[in-house]
């Protein structure tokens, strides 16, 4: 399997998370009373490694399986196949008892900040819940002290500890969500579109907070987003998903400067440039049509139905992820000729 290093100087470290051929298929009842169940392939054979302190961006349009991938890694949705190796040990299908101690290293931040907080609990109780679950031996006073310390760390006033989620703004709620995720000092946080529900000025604050925390605690992040500008700002490597398949996986500079997959090219050409002169004259690749149904994906390359360069081979053969350079992999038959 390919091993790509995110940053120079970390060549010898081994990945903390290795995902191999991960599949999440949902059974959808067939049409008609006795029709067999159909398979919805939300995630269909995803491979990647994640290194300590690294941020991996996962981008793609709505419904491409980004969130499902994030939840499958955390075993919140049971994967239908493949492996998720955490620190070298496969955790797919682990019983609840074995998963429990691992949960303190694996956390998640959600898209909707308010919906991710229980409206009937004070934020002190919300942030303390992971501690109460995993370290009940600490005692009330110590837990409260730690909660206050973490609140201060993420930019909340510690005296707000007895307030309720509805008394906070969206950005503050997201800080509460981050505090809850950080209180156990985990090694990996899956950020499921953490800023897309916030306005732009707050987005920058939250992204900067995540970056600070990452440096401070040597966190690894899986940053799911559809905002390519933010992904570019925060991520070391970027994975492009389409219909549950990896299209391209490369480090940040490569993917923006030199995208190889036609889908990546289209995505990146859609990012607005804050200069009207360049913006007006730049070449845009406009995709036609919609995302095909993941219940009956196209044969061969899943992107071929919308690909402006599709040829016969694309319909018959599934493209493999090809190494095109040390830091770039592309799943396209014709990446050399395009």
């Amino acid at each position, binding site marked *: 399997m390919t091993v790509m290093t995110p940053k120079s100087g970390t060549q010898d470290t081994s990945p903390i998370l290795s995902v191999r051929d991960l599949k999440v298929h949902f059974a959808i009842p067939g049409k008609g009373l006795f029709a067999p169940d159909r398979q919805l392939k939300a995630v269909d054979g995803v491979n990647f490694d994640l290194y300590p302190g690294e941020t991996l961006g996962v981008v793609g349009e709505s419904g491409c399986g980004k969130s499902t991938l994030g939840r499958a890694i955390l075993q919140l949705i049971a994967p239908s196949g493949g492996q998720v190796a955490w620190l070298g040990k496969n955790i797919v299908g682990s019983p609840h008892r074995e998963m429990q101690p691992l949960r303190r290293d*694996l956390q998640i931040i959600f898209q909707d900040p308010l919906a*991710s907080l*229980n409206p009937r609990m004070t934020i002190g109780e919300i942030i303390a819940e992971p501690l109460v679950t995993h370290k009940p031996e600490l005692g009330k006073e110590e837990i409260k002290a730690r909660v206050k310390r973490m609140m201060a760390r993420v930019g909340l006033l510690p005296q707000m500890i007895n307030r309720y989620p509805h008394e906070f703004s969206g950005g503050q709620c997201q800080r509460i969500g981050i505090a809850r995720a950080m209180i156990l000092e985990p090694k990996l946080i899956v950020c499921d579109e953490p800023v897309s529900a916030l306005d732009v000025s707050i987005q920058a604050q939250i992204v900067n907070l995540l970056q600070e925390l990452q440096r401070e605690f040597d966190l690894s992040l899986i940053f799911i987003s559809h905002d390519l500008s933010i992904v570019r700002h925060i991520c070391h490597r970027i994975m492009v998903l389409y219909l549950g398949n990896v299209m391209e996986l490369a480090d940040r500079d490569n993917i923006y400067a030199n995208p190889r997959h036609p889908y990546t090219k289209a995505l990146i050409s859609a990012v607005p440039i804050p200069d009207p002169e360049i913006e007006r004259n730049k070449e845009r690749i406009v995709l036609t049509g919609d995302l095909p149904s993941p219940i009956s994906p196209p044969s061969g390359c899943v992107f071929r139905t919308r690909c402006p360069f599709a040829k016969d081979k694309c319909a018959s053969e599934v493209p493999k992820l090809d190494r095109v350079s040390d830091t770039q992999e592309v799943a396209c038959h014709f990446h050399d000729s395009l």
Partner: protein
Amino acid sequence: MMNKSEKTAMLEAAGAPVEIEGRSLWRDARIRLFRNKAAVGSMIILGIITLLAVFAPLLSPYAYDQIDWGYIQEGPNWENGHIFGTDGNGRDLFIRVLFGARVSLAVGLLATSVSLVIGVTYGAVAGFFGGKIDNIMMRFVDVLYSLPFMFFVIMLMVVFGRNIFLIFVALGAVEWLTMARIVRGQTLSLRRREFIEAAHATGVSNFKIIFRHIIPNVLGPVIVYMTLTIPQVILTESFLSFLGLGVQEPLTSWGVLISEGAKVIEASTWMLIYPAVFLALTLFCFNFIGDGLRDALDPKDR
């Protein structure tokens, strides 16, 4: 005495950051409820009726089963102490109405609490686990639902004899079904919410998720349904007593008193009017409180 804000100001001046008390959704609801005049009035009236029922023996010189041979089926009379009159056996109606209140309110509260505990737990478990477990549990509820209630009560009476506890059992056994369905529906919509997912991600046990995250969030509709169940249960008990399936003489309930009063409606109207007024008043009060609670707990749904 120092009031709270002064205290806060002083502490802040001393450099200590003070923990600010949040306003929970429950407190918001309570404030809204106490602004509702009908609900507050109903609570006061219900409180008075409850106090009367509790302290009934102290309020009348007569006992509920004591026959006053001098006044048989006489109208209300302040001078001899029979302020609501007496019934056909010469028993004081005032004390009998209050003892009827004891039975009716006790049936209402007990049967509702039984249905609350069973229904909420059952519904939350079914909704939370979903899938096959949910299917089996809810089909069981459907089967019980399809049991004719009167038939069920009569069978119980035949097998176990007439007993006030059978009324509790019968009513509780029927009322929790609706409660379970309501809670299940609410739980189904809650369990995919992100804060439940966050609890799963942290490794909180299923048991704790149900009791810490799900039940507090379904309690709003449950409380409303509960206040509307109490009058329904009281009414059902009255109905059963009216048919002669309820409490045993000389103990009485509002249903029994109304039934006796209805037989002599032309000769002695007071025997019907007093228990009927108490019953109607209580039902009104519970319904107003239920309405008030619904508005208070769900301000968007007005």
